């Protein structure tokens, strides 16, 4: 059984560009949450998707948006990239509000 998979593994972008990150949840899970983790910090909650709707959102600007597809996979989009958006982006899946299991993350570098 595959766990949570994220793509791509690494990404390099320049300021002002747009990026899309992808996540496939663990089999049987219906809820996907996205986190941003800066170096030396704990993960910070961006938003959570359930039944293709954004259920909760953290303190992130509207430049951060997402989507969940009928097969429960999800995308995170970031527009107008800033240097400060450089971080490890983590996707976690769960069955409802149960334990969240994380993927290996996407390392985004903004130059």
């Amino acid at each position, binding site marked *: 059984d595959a766990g949570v998979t994220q793509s791509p593994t690494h990404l390099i972008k320049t300021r002002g560009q747009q990026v899309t990150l992808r996540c496939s949840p663990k089999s049987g899970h219906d809820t996907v949450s996205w986190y941003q983790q800066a170096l030396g910090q*704990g*993960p910070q909650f961006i938003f959570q998707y359930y039944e293709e709707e954004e259920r909760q959102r953290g303190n992130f600007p509207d430049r951060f948006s997402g989507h969940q597809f009928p097969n429960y996979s999800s995308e995170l989009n970031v527009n107008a990239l800033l240097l400060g958006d450089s971080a490890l982006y983590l996707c976690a899946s769960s069955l409802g509000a149960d*334990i969240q299991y994380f993927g290996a993350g996407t390392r985004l570098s903004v130059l």
Partner: protein
Amino acid sequence: EDQVTQSPEALRLQEGESSSLNCSYTVSGLRGLFWYRQDPGKGPEFLFTLYSAGEEKEKERLKATITKKESFLHITAPKPEDSATYLCARNSGNTPLVFGKGTRLSVIA
């Protein structure tokens, strides 16, 4: 504001030297306290969930305990492969996971 504070920020142990990591939290209506292990450049790996004061969970050399305001991760006779960052997180009601900054553990052979 709900917070999760972990201490120490970093801990260096000799192989076999037991110790404890601390996670203190301020939240009403705690729904769960979570411990994760994170290796460099990887995603957090789930270790334990604790739900109420007095509960204990064990896995190999790790034991997690919880009171009304703190949780501890006890590491008994650690080995170099236990070196990682240990993250604590809580949720309450319908709120998302709130993480601490983690404790970086280094175990020296």
